């Protein structure tokens, strides 16, 4: 086992363990920090897989954006009653059963019966991946790029509508 493989397994283990931790902890703040750890190690895996651009975006968007937002949200809401935010679990038995069954199906089919050896592509990565991605986003993938922009606009307006404070009108 060379050191690249070792680091890969290291990051993989952290990802899985912290994701399991999110499942088992009931304190939402702990879950958030574990999620951050999980995202960090996924970013590490991306970098190891030569997808450094995706790794950086993962850090920027998930860790830098979404998780910070979640932590702020938690800080502002726990201030109201001073207690830690704790979640409850329902239907634990069915959940565990379903999860295990689904996990075993997926792992059986994907890990053990897929023949990934044959998929080894002979495509070489371009030297400057960021430039490549940028040019493709603005040419071949222009339409999906613009669609994503509209999607975000609609989602933003939707979130604003739902969360807006309304005067309670009783009809």
């Amino acid at each position: 086992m060379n050191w690249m493989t070792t680091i890969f397994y290291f990051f993989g283990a952290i990802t899985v363990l912290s994701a399991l931790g999110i499942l088992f902890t009931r304190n939402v703040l702990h879950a958030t920090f574990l999620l951050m750890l999980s995202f960090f190690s996924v970013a590490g895996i991306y970098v190891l897989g030569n997808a450094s651009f995706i790794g950086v975006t993962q850090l920027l968007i998930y860790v830098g954006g979404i998780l910070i937002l979640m932590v702020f949200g938690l800080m502002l809401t726990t201030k109201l009653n001073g207690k830690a935010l704790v979640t409850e679990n329902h239907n634990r038995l069915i959940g565990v059963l379903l999860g295990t069954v689904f996990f075993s199906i997926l792992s059986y089919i994907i890990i053990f019966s897929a023949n990934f050896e044959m998929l080894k592509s002979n495509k070489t990565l371009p030297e400057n991946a960021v430039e490549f991605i940028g040019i493709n986003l603005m040419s071949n993938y222009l339409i999906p790029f613009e669609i994503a922009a509209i999607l975000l606009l609609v989602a933003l307006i939707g979130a604003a509508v739902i969360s807006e404070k309304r005067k309670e009108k009783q009809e």
Partner: protein
Amino acid sequence: MEYASQLNNQLQNTIALLSGYWPEFIIVIGLVVTLIIDLIFFNKEKNSNWWIGFVNLVFLILAFTKQVDVYSYFSNLGEFMKLVLLFAGVLFIVFSLTQTHQTKKAGEYYIIFNGLLIGALLIAKSTNLLVIYLGIEMMSISAYVLSAFSFNKNSAEASLKYLLFGAVSSAFMLFGMSLLYGFTQTLNINDFELLHTVKVIGDLPIKLAVFMTMFGFLFKIAATPMHIWSPDVYEATPTFVVAAFSVIPKLAVFVLLFNIADKFLVFPEVELLLQFTAILSLTIGNFAALWQKNAKRMLAYSSIAHTGFLLIAFFANMQSFVFYGLVYLIMNFAVFGLVKVVEQKFSITDIEQYIGLGKKIPLIGVLFVVALISLTGLPPTAGFTAKILVFSGIWEKYLTNHNPVYLSLFVFGLFNTVVSLFYYLKIPYFMFIKKSNEVILNEHKSSTVLTYLIGSLVFVLILCFFLPNSLMDMIYSINFAQ
């Protein structure tokens, strides 16, 4: 130098592609204009709601005319169904315009509806997994928000349920799509060589990927067993939005199913899954509808059952699907419009409260009867013609390849048509036949324009029964070979 010319070529290709996206582009402009108008005139103009709706209507009609051009150029199923979807959008906005004083947050209402429509158009058009995913997400996110537009406790709950179910199904679908991309190394469905890939990767993983992708698609058309969200959502959502919900996403995803059919249905298991879903949706939708007390909830189950019929039409042939889809659109808009009229006039949605309404509002009662007969599929309405086309199509399929599944689709379809008679006729029964003890209901003013609109829709339903040729000619102008 070579690099630059290559880049130039790429850009030229992209620009050439963009011309096919004019209708979507016009709707996006409409969306942005609405946003600006809403920001400027918010709460200042008394008639701002009306103006916003009118501006949207103008943009949608522009998009519709542009789509006519696009269709005359390509004339395939996707472009035709985009016309149908835009027509549904125009109907929705015209319906909403009759209620301007009641629409809450009109600006956002129309903006988010435009988002839903753009998503549906993209799904109907594209064969690229990335665009399909973005379209489905756009449609779903708009739908989650629109289902909260009653702004009360029930609708918040329904919206949250919809969001949770939808997010899970999207996650499944995305996982499936990512596997498909990994296995085939292309995002374009037309380039898929799944049978070839099976030889390389192995049988099970590809089927798993296809199944997971189909799971997401089936969720969007509310096919059993992915229908659990729909009754709650339909009950709590504003009635016109429900009419749009029951038509636009469904038809769009069905076009997508046609687009991917020759790639995904190479596996007999996938075909069997769809056929099984059709039978299950029919049976569960119809039988659950029998017990419903709320008109909107009953229609939710009826639309699940109609998903089953549309799936049968999917297996019969494209012509019968297009006919059924068009008629389904008109029927659903008419029926939900009538539910809205009654809701507005007497603020009731429970079927048992409809008692004796036939004498008070005879015109609406008669329209109700015709629309519901059409939903059942009895003459003299277009619903009958549509069902005849579907059943004869599936029977022909059975005669050509003697697959017992087609026979069971046929039998289950017929059987369920009979079952549906019982709950559809419950409304006319309460309105006209059951004797009432003069319940006094507060009567409000309702829009007469809306009643006339629905009247014209119902007239079209009857017209299409007696003169189906004009509609059939339109359908046969589609180039089905593609």
